[in-house]
């Protein structure tokens, strides 16, 4: 046994604890159940104490972390359920299927709650597009997301894509889903009611995703590699049927609880449902419909075959359940029933294959608080001072280079492959700061975004984490929405390394502080550790997914300039903050300096001011200054609106600082001349700096800094540079 538990990835101390919990030595099947449930992925054993520090409550929160998705009130008895999840490692091996099944998994998490999915988002990170393997991964991931989302008919409306060498061997693929439900339709993943049947529905079970590496035991060594593909293949058509059938089932009142089978398949869904319900279950693996022959009990339990759900219907309602599944042509099988003994009893026919207390697999998992230590690289990279850099010879060239850099360039190449309009709710699609979906039958809209600048997090994980939250909220505000709540996907390296664990703790602390100040509690999330290749970690990447409410769609806003003669104003203040900027990274090849500072009170004031001005109908376009600073933000608004602008600012700052610093808490808005007074009144009310910086119009992008014309680029050239950059890199 000694060797076996190690091969299954368990520590000696963990094995001892298992024996104690069981009161005996576990058999092979039981040990494999512990091994997957106590894995980092399922147990969060390295992250749980830290995650506990997130703020998770608020009047809007109907369901916080702990369920398949978080749920937030949006008024009128309606609510939104949402969650983000990573599929980084599968996507590194097989980008198309890895990304596709990531999308499939997150959709199931949302409809499990009784919500109809209304939108998908994705947050992606790759190495440099100069590398052939990276191109292959990028293309594969995007087409996998496109295939799954389009086929199932849920619009993919927003996301982000960044390119940085730290992700070359380990891309990040995070997918988010948002669903809509009525309060009384909320379903949880609980198993209760002694004698209620336990059903598996959807796809048949195969040997998908049972990791050869974890199970390279002697007992198995004679089985050929070919028999155990570790890559799961998705079937969005099956999932569409499952989605419709499950929602119909929930509306019928015939179910108590349901949960999707994601990581660790049947075993994790059953023990989690039993734990939540304070119950137990008897299940017969022989009753599980399979698509392969000769599967061992542990294979059936651990299989990660996609598009399956575990459902607990009410006893006596079996016929309703059956009728609904028949209508959708789905296979459903009763595999057991709910008990009150707290045990997970796994039968294989009339033989007991395993028997474990459900909570032993879930709540009893050991928790670790690894050592945290500030990494050494920090003092070196932070010491770099951009003030010593020479002024660029030609800021027009700099602007064009920034617009052409893949992280800043238009992501149209990506999102034109996504059906972002299906279901006819997309009022603002991809390409603006946040996407907006209308809620049919009301005048409300749901705004959604994902954000994270991992370079900031690399240079200062605390501030970087806080900025990710602040930027997400800012993007929602720019679209006219009030930010409601957060889902997060924490992508880091190996947490057993003190430096990585330090990054992790710092980032969470920074995010927590921002979430508190901006009243956007965390309601769901996901942790992905071990994102490393050959010992090198990805930049710490705590992705923030945020959902907001547009109370009245008449007051929505987008980033594109609207009309000749509108005046440009900057909310907030530009500082000498070139550290961590794309200007440094792209033009000077330095991922260095200090992350821009973030003052949360200023941030909150700027956001409140902007939102109120939008609601008053004063603002006709709004766009926050993010990567590339003020110059890039203004150029993006000009390109999107198909109309030029002329910026004129007097400042103490050096020209490149003014143009390219990534100082936080800044939003460029445009207003009609007649509304300037109203704008200033609003800005004063919130104590926000609001400076007129230019005029919309013409067919060039011009920027004059302290009386000197620094940038003059034709709109057409800026637009084609920005739009075509990614496609150019791929051919």
């Amino acid at each position, binding site marked *: 046994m000694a060797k076996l538990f190690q091969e299954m990835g368990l520590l000696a101390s963990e094995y001892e604890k298992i024996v104690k919990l069981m009161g005996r030595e576990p058999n092979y099947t039981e040990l494999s159940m512990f091994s997957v449930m106590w894995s980092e992925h399922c147990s969060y054993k390295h992250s749980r104490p830290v995650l506990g520090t997130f703020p998770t409550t608020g009047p809007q929160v109907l369901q916080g972390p702990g369920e398949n998705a978080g749920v937030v009130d949006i008024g009128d008895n309606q609510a939104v359920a949402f969650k983000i999840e990573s599929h980084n490692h599968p996507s590194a*091996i*097989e980008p198309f*299927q890895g990304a596709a099944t990531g999308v499939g998994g997150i959709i199931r998490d949302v409809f499990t709650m009784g919500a109809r999915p209304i939108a998908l988002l994705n947050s992606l990170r790759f190495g440099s597009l100069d590398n052939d393997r990276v191109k292959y991964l990028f293309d594969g991931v995007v087409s996998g997301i496109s295939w799954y989302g389009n086929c199932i008919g849920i619009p993919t409306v927003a996301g982000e894509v960044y390119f940085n060498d730290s992700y070359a061997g380990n891309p990040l693929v995070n997918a988010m889903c948002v669903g809509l439900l009525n309060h009384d339709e909320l379903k949880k993943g609980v198993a209760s009611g002694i004698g209620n049947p336990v059903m598996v529905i959807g*796809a048949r079970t*195969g*040997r*998908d995703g049972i990791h050869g590496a974890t199970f390279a035991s002697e007992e198995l060594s004679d089985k050929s590699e*070919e*028999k*155990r*593909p570790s*890559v*799961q*293949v*998705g*079937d969005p*058509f*099956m999932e569409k049927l499952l989605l419709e059938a499950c929602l119909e089932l929930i509306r019928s009142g015939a179910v108590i609880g349901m949960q999707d089978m994601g990581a660790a398949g049947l075993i994790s869904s059953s023990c989690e449902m039993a734990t939540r319900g304070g119950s137990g279950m008897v299940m017969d693996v022989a009753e599980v419909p399979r*698509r*392969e022959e000769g599967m061992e009990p542990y294979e059936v339990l651990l299989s990660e*075959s*996609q598009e399956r759900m575990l459902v607990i219907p009410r006893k006596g309602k079996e016929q309703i359940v059956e009728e609904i599944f028949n209508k959708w*042509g789905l296979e459903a099988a009763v595999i057991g029933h709910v008990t009150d003994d707290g045990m997970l009893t796994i039968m294989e026919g009339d033989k007991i294959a395993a028997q474990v207390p459900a909570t032993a697999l879930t709540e009893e998992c050991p928790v670790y608080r690894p050592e945290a230590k500030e990494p050494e690289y920090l003092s070196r990279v932070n010491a770099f001072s951009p003030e010593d850099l020479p002024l660029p010879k030609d800021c027009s060239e700099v602007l064009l280079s920034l617009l052409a850099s893949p992280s800043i360039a238009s992501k149209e190449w990506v999102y034109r492959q996504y059906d972002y309009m299906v279901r006819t709710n997309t009022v603002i699609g991809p390409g603006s700061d946040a996407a907006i979906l209308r809620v049919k039958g009301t005048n409300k809209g749901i705004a959604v975004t994902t954000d994270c600048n991992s370079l900031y997090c690399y240079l200062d994980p605390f501030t970087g984490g806080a900025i990710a939250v602040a930027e997400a909220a800012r993007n929602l505000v720019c679209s006219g929405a009030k930010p409601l709540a957060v889902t997060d996907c924490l992508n880091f390296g190996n947490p057993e390394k003190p430096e990585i664990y330090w990054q992790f703790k710092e980032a969470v602390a920074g995010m927590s502080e921002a979430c508190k100040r901006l009243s956007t509690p965390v309601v769901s999330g996901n942790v992905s550790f071990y994102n490393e290749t050959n010992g090198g970690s990805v930049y710490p990447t705590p992705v923030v997914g945020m959902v907001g409410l547009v109370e009245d769609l008449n007051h929505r806003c987008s980033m594109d300039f609207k009309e000749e003669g509108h005046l440009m104003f900057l909310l907030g203040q530009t500082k000498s903050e070139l550290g961590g900027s794309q200007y440094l990274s792209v033009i000077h090849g330095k991922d260095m300096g200090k992350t821009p500072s973030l003052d949360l009170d200023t941030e909150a004031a700027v956001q409140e001011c902007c939102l109120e001005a939008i609601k008053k109908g004063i603002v006709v376009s709004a766009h926050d200054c993010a990567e590339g600073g003020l110059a890039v933000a203004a150029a993006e608004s000009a390109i999107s609106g198909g109309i030029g602008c002329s910026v004129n600012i007097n400042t103490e700052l050096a020209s490149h600082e003014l143009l390219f610093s990534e100082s936080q808490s800044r939003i460029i808005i445009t207003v009609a001349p007649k509304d300037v007074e109203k704008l200033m009144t609003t800005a004063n009310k919130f104590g926000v700096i609001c400076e007129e910086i230019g005029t919309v119009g013409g067919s060039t992008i011009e920027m004059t800094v302290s009386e000197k014309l620094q940038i003059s680029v034709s709109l057409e050239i800026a637009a084609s540079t920005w739009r075509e950059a990614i496609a150019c890199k791929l051919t």
Partner: protein
Amino acid sequence: MYQAKIKVTLKKGVLDPQGSAVQRSLRALDYGEVTSVRIGKYMEVNLEASNKETAEEQVKEMCQRLLANPVIEDYTYNLVEVKS
């Protein structure tokens, strides 16, 4: 000139949703006797080469590098000389 007729199929055990859907459809069309359907790709690649060995080497390499996805697919090919 040579022509390679290449078949790319899903590895054993890999889910083939397309095959299953076609099988269900054939059943619905009353071909109840169909017991399984697997769907893959078929490619015809024409290439110039000085001799069959070189051609074969090339074809094999193309399959491994581009035409099949080694993570989930297997391939077989059949190479014949044809008139150009």
